[in-house]
Structures are given as structure tokens and as C-alpha cells.
């Protein structure tokens, strides 16, 4: 007893020390007025501005253009030879929800059970996650923290309805400061027809007849339908003010904005059959759908375009699904989707690989996607897809000043981010990796 309480006390002390040390410097500086001058500014809302000025005040972009007067109180950053872009938006991550994948104590991305519409990412995002400064040093200024949609992790799979994804800035002392939108999408992992499963008790693969797998699939789809129907009734009751006659149901309450068409479903599916079924389901039910994954989106591109379903594409740095797919199947898909008029964005679907987002977008360009489309697919398009383009995504007056100043193409591997602004505040690029690098660079030569 005594020992355990001592250990607990030491643990608390350690936690307190961790919380105090090193974190403060990584956070934003107090709000101020900034002027970026002589920069090449890629607003993504028109053509690039040469030798332009961008003015930041009270967290917003106050002005952008040529010959803008710089107020006396502004901190001036001469960005001659540098380029300014909107911050990069990684629209599927488990940022703040998962620190070390293999250690379940650090994993909060996946709740137990199959239907958890009421759980919200923002409730568990740790503002002190080491992933946040590492990620923003790559020019990523905001992300969607997605629960239960990252697939299998050390807590298991994400179930069917995984919870609500939150859009967050990658800077802030608390989650309240970080929040862009608490509930930006509802995660739905569309079921699959699985004819093969893995049995952990015997450690072997189990075959299942198709008919049986199909039955299970249908059962799950029926369950989803049932949830939607019940949510619809519940929402109706809420509307008529008669919800009081029901027992309050937090899960159905959470689904109400979905059935009202206010909150999009972020539907994870990769195979064309599942994508098609999901699109038809959402269409029939009148639900707004955003497809996530979409490895075979090219097979149903006409359907996706005609139903205006945007896609958050799985990283291109992934092997093709099938052995007889072309080796560049995933790499060339974005160009094909763009040509077909399907709207899409890139995302890392991860934390530690979030900084590969630009690399993914550039790879799509290497395989035929126009460069501007690739750049917008990690800035403006994800903002638009999640209905945040009124706030972020371009460099326009009145928008939140989430932006990066680089020494080159932000998608290229060797480009450095020179300055980073989040919510209009100049934000440090210090991070765990840089600190370790500096520390061990200074190690005296071993004897």
C-alpha cells in the first residue's frame, strides 16, 4: 500500500515536471501584428503575388497584396526570396489521440464497442503530444483528429461508428485554444465482406464461405440502417420538442446532426464494391458522405462525381491492393480522379508519417496530377470538404492566419519551413527531434 502510494506520488511528480519542462517554449508567442514583406505569396485564391506583403493582426489575415502599408506596431519579417503558402491541412490523423502505437496506455483513438457516435476526438486530444510540434515543423498547421477510423491499433479496431472527428490547430495551450471545429465529421467504418479471418487462439487463418461472409456483411449494414432510422426518429422527436418523453439517448443525439444532413459521415472504404454500397446507402438515406481511403475510387469515379462525394485519399505511399494491379495504381489515381472531376484531398491517416503528406502530394504530381491541384489537395480542398474554407485554406483577408513561409516548394523533400504562423501567432518549430539532434550533436567525442 505504502509503496504503491509512493510510486503514485513519484509518478505524479514526474508528470508535473514533464508538463512544466520544455513545453512552454514550443507554444505560440503572444498575439501580435506581423508583416511579411517582399514575399512571393501563393494565396491559392488567384495567381501568385510577387514581392507582396501579408499583414497579420488579431490572429487573422488583415491584408494581402502589393504595396500594403505596414503599420508601425507590426513586427516585420523580410521574406525576400521566400514563399508564403496557406498552412498544410492533414485531414485524417490521430493527432493527440495516439502517442506510441504499440503502447495502449498512450492510445485514445479507439473506443471499445461497435457504435460510439457520441465519443468526440477533442475530448482526448493531448495538447502536449510530441507529435504536434514534430508535425507542424513540416508545415502542417491544422489537422483532423479522427477517432476509430485509423483501423487496427493496440486497442483493437475502430468498430463501425467510430466517433466524431475534431478539426484542430496544431498550436495552443489547451484543446479549447486549438479547436477549429469540435465536431467536423462522424466516422463510419463501412463493413467488408470478409471471407478470411485470423483466429488468434489457434493462430491460423480461417476460411469462411462467401455466403456466410455476405450474411454477416448484410447484418452489419442492416445495423447501420437501424441506427440511422432510430436517429431520424429521435431527431424528429427533438425537433417537435417531444424528446422529453423519451429517455435521453446520447448516442442518438450525437447522430441527429448526421441525419439532419448537418454533419458529414466520414466513411472508410477502399474496395469499389464497398464504396458503391456506401454511396448508394448515403444517397438513399440523404446523408452527406465523405469517402476516406478510396483505394479503388477510380473504379467508381463516375458515381463519386455524380453524387458529389469527395474523397480523402489513403497515402499514395501504399502498395496496390492486388497483385495484378499496376505497380503505380495508387500513384496515378489522383490524376485520374482529377480528370474525372472527382474532388479529393490527401491525408496521412497517421501521426508519425504526417510529415510525409507533402511527399505524397508531390508523388501524385510525378504521376500526372497538375501541381496546383496537388497543392490545393493539402490546403484548400480538405478545408472545403470539411466546410472550413470560410476560415482556412487560402490566404485571403479575414481568414485565420495559418500559414507557412518556405524557402521553396512546400511539397518537395528538401524544402525548409522558415516561419510558421498558427492562429496569427508566430509558432516555434522546436520539437523533440530537433532537441535530440542538437543535444547529441554536442556530445563530446567518445574516448
Amino acid at each position: 500500500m505504502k509503496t504503491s502510494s509512493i510510486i503514485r506520488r513519484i509518478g505524479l511528480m514526474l508528470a508535473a515536471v514533464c508538463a512544466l519542462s520544455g513545453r512552454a517554449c514550443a507554444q505560440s508567442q503572444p498575439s501580435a501584428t506581423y508583416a511579411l514583406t517582399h514575399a512571393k505569396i501563393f494565396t491559392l485564391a488567384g495567381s501568385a503575388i510577387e514581392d507582396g506583403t501579408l499583414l497579420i493582426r488579431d490572429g487573422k489575415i488583415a491584408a494581402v497584396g502589393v504595396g500594403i502599408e505596414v503599420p508601425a506596431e507590426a513586427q516585420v519579417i523580410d521574406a525576400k526570396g521566400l514563399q508564403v503558402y496557406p498552412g498544410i491541412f492533414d485531414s485524417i490523423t490521430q493527432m493527440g489521440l495516439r502517442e506510441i502505437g504499440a503502447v495502449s496506455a498512450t492510445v485514445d483513438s479507439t473506443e471499445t464497442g461497435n457504435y460510439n457516435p457520441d465519443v468526440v476526438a477533442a475530448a482526448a486530444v493531448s495538447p502536449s503530444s510530441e507529435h504536434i510540434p514534430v508535425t507542424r515543423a513540416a508545415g502542417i498547421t491544422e489537422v483532423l483528429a479522427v477517432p476509430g477510423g485509423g483501423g487496427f491499433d493496440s486497442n483493437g479496431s475502430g468498430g463501425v461508428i467510430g466517433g466524431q472527428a475534431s478539426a484542430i490547430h496544431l498550436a495552443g495551450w489547451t484543446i479549447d485554444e486549438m479547436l477549429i471545429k469540435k465536431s467536423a465529421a462522424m466516422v463510419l467504418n463501412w463493413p467488408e465482406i470478409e471471407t478470411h479471418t485470423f483466429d488468434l487462439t489457434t493462430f491460423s487463418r480461417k476460411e469462411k464461405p462467401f455466403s456466410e461472409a455476405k450474411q454477416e456483411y448484410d447484418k452489419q449494414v442492416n445495423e447501420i440502417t437501424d441506427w440511422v432510422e432510430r436517429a431520424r426518429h429521435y431527431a424528429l422527436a427533438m425537433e417537435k420538442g417531444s424528446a422529453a418523453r423519451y429517455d435521453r439517448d446520447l448516442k442518438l443525439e450525437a447522430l441527429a446532426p448526421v441525419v439532419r444532413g448537418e454533419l458529414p459521415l466520414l466513411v472508410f472504404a477502399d474496395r469499389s464494391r464497398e464504396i458503391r454500397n456506401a454511396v448508394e446507402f448515403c444517397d438513399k438515406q440523404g446523408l452527406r458522405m465523405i469517402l476516406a481511403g478510396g483505394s479503388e475510387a477510380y473504379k467508381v469515379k463516375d458515381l463519386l462525381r455524380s453524387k458529389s462525394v469527395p474523397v480523402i485519399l489513403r497515402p499514395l505511399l501504399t502498395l496496390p491492393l492486388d497483385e495484378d494491379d499496376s505497380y503505380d495504381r495508387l500513384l496515378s489515381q489522383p490524376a485520374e480522379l482529377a480528370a474525372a472531376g472527382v474532388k479529393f484531398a490527401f491525408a496521412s491517416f497517421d501521426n508519425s508519417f504526417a510529415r510525409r503528406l507533402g511527399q505524397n502530394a508531390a508523388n501524385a504530381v510525378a504521376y500526372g496530377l497538375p501541381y496546383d491541384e496537388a497543392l490545393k489537395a493539402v490546403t484548400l480542398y480538405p478545408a472545403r470538404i470539411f466546410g472550413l474554407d470560410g476560415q482556412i485554406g487560402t490566404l485571403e483577408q479575414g481568414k485565420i492566419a495559418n500559414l507557412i513561409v518556405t524557402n521553396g516548394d512546400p511539397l518537395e523533400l528538401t524544402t525548409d519551413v522558415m516561419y510558421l504562423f498558427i492562429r496569427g501567432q508566430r509558432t516555434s518549430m522546436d520539437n523533440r527531434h530537433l532537441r535530440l539532434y542538437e543535444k547529441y550533436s554536442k556530445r563530446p567525442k567518445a574516448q
Partner: protein
Amino acid sequence: MRISKVLNAHGLGTLFLGLLGVLCLGYFPRSASAANPPDAAAVILIRNATILTVSHGTIERGSILIKDGKIAEVSQSINAPKDAQVIDAAGQFVMPGIIDCHSHIAAESINEGSVSVSSMVNMAEILNPEDIDIYRDLAGGVTAANILHGSANAIGGQTLVIKLRWGQPAAKLPFEGALPGIKFALGENPKRSNFSIPGQPRRYPSTRMGVEETIRSAFSEARDYQKSWQDYGKRLAAGEKNLIPPRRDLRLEPLVEVLEGKRYVHSHCYREDEILMLLRVAKEFGFKVRTFQHVLEGYKVADELATAGVGASTFSDWWAYKVEAYDAIPYNAALMTRRGVVVSINSDDAEEATHLNQEAAKSMKFGGLSHDEALKMVTLNPAVQLGIDNRVGTIDVGKDADLAIYNHDPLSAYAVVQKTLIDGRVYFDRQRDTAEHSEREKEKKALIDKFKKSAEKKPEDKKPDATVPILQKPAEKKPGEKKPEEKKPEKNPGPPLESAAPVLPGGER
């Protein structure tokens, strides 16, 4: 798991058609042109190329003459011999073929995970020349790979270096003359930290202390075994009659080879302390560690690595997928290089191997290596680490004509491989691959239509049960075995792709 995806892949909705899709799988990789590499012209001239020699700078608009699979001449301008096949590489970049110092492609299985010392098993015996990942990596400019056993054991299986000669039988894959290796593993994987098999007791070792003792104990035995053969040899030489030779021990033989410098040790590791531990054990028993693999905390003990003369083969920027990867930093390669360690950047993953050129480029951003230093990370340095730098790794006269041709500077995210040559043969050609794509699709459709027709005639074939045995047949790749041991570092996590994959024993990282 993959097979069900494959079935679903074709979106055919019914079992028997899905089954056909599966059958196609067995067929198509072989029908691809790459399966039958064209007999190369004996003489090839690549000209007008930017040649990244790695050993002696960059030659603008230069030429490379290839004769009988070897580089015969490298210079500014070479006149095409009469019978030469000419590759005009105007605007393109030629670099030495990429060498992946840590790969698990072309293997039927990865881990013999039942015991803590599995030195008796050998990757050379389970090569699968039809693994499609060979072709995919070839399309990423990779020409040679170090095929390693997994990291489930303190001392794992025997390993070998292959060339990615897609379309050739297994016997043609090994890199001739390359010294064989053996996989060691330290830390979380051999101590089985991140998973367990329900119903099975814990296996020794389960601490880093036990990992050290497992290795020491195995080498103690190996020394005794070595001595028993040496004694036998001596007595035989002395003319003793009626001697009985010692009983062969297939587990200890490879360890004796390690002691005698005939087999390289490639050791998986993460933490600084375990790196130094193995160096101490190696010193105690008088063997060399050839490379540390992953070695994500190598930057903390870079001087010790340099002093020991051991190579370090690491990832570009992976981190945080487990505790021992929490101090991993993308500056690792550059920091170790600056302290005099020979460093390579590897894949450990069939997908990662398709863009090792890009991964190498990151060492310029993180730590400021030069263009040439970055290129060496995936060419000359892994060649040195594998002891094959007399044959490959640079573009020099006399070396094997193993080359990758890109449309841009390969240290860019915009570069795409146009051709990959091994031994002077074009094993991958992007134009040819693209041109044959529609043919492959046509052929696949024809097969599916044919099957549809025959299925309509014989409705009894539609019975699901009838298909089960056939479904099991084309298990060409069993991801369950291949991506085994612990979770992938969730590089590309995704519900449908990996979600059903449980945490399996085996593996990597």
C-alpha cells in the same frame, strides 16, 4: 486477409467470379512482360544522360557503355559501337541501382519465431521468385536487396543478398559471391514485448538482460562446437585411425561461420544500450558485427559505432510506433555519417523500397548531407555494408551494369524511374509497363468472361463450398506471415487494408 481483399477486389459480388479473380492472380504476374526479361543486347549505350556516378561526381550529357553486363566505359561522349542498343536518356538521370540493406521481399516466410535461437533456418531456401514485390521494388530502382529473417529471435535465421532479377527462377536470384549473413535482434521484438499468443507461455528471453545471455550462451556452445571440430581435424591430420567425427549441429554451424568471419551479422536494434551490449558480446567472443539494422538510437553512440567499424542501416524518418522508437529522429543518418559511420537507409518494407531515393533525400534536409552523401545512403554505403562494393554501388568501369534511370534528379519527390537495369539487362521499363497495361486488362477480362460462361453452364459450380479448396491455392502472399510480428509502424494504417490483420508474431522493426 489479403485473399479476401483480392476476392472483393474484382467487385464481382459473387463468389465464383471472385474465385476467377483469384485464379487470375496466379496467372498475371507471370504473363507480365517482365517475367520474361528480354535477352539483352550484349552491348548497350546510354547517352545524353546526367550521370550520377557517386564515386567521381556528376557527368552532364554523358554516356555509359555496357558490355556483357558490365560497365565498359563512362565518359562525356562515346560513339555507339555498330551492334549497340542505344538508350537515349536526354534530360534523364542515371544513378547506380538502389541497394536495399533490409528487405523481406521474395520470401515465402519471414520468422521462425518458436525459439530464441533459430540460426538453423535459411532464407536462401525459401526464396519466391514470383513475389510481385520484386517487380514493384524494381520499378522503384532497386537492383539488389539484403533478404533478412525476421526479428523474433535474439539469433535469427541465415540471410542472403539477392539481385532483383524478376522473371528468373529462384536459383538465379542470389547475388553471386556475396557473403551470407545471419539476423540478430535486440530489444522489444526478441523479448516479445508487444504481443503475446493466447494460451502460450512466455518465451525466454523477456528482458534485454536475457537477450544478452541468449547470445552469449549460443556463442559459448558455438566455441565448444568449433573446438570439437578443430580437435578432430588435428587428430585426423596427425594420422589417427578409426576416428568418429563430431555430430553436425546445424544450429551452431552458422555461428562458427560468424566466429570465423565467413558470415556477416546483421543485428536489428533500437536503443543505445543494447547496441553497446552487442558490441561487448562480439568483443568477448571475437566476432564482428557487420551492420546494425534500424539502429534508431545509433546517433547517441555514433562514435562507438565508428570505432567498432560497424555499419548502420536505418530508416529515414520512422518513429513512435513503439517505445524503443520514441527517440528516433530523422537526423540519425546524418549525425552518424558526420561521426564517421558508414550509413545506409533501408526499407524493411516492400512499399518503402519503391522510393528509397526519396528517403535518402531526406538526409539532406535533416542534418544537411550533400547530394552525393545522400545518394550513397542507398548505393555505395549499403554495398560496402554487404561487402559487394567491388561489384555494385557506383557507376565505374568494371562494375555490374546495375542502373536506375529517372526522369528527374532522383533526390526529388517528382522523380519517376524510367528504366532499371541489372547486369546490363533492362528488367523494368516504364514505357513498356504502361503499354502492356491495357493488354493485361484485356486478358484478365477475357478470362473472367470465359469463366462466367462456363459457370453459367454448370450451375453446381456456384456452390460456395466447392470453391473453398481453390481459394486456398493461390496464397501467393500471405500478409499474415509477411507483415508479421508487431504492428507495422502504422505507416499506412487503414481500416480495410490492415484492420483485420491481428498483431502477429513474426517480424520486423
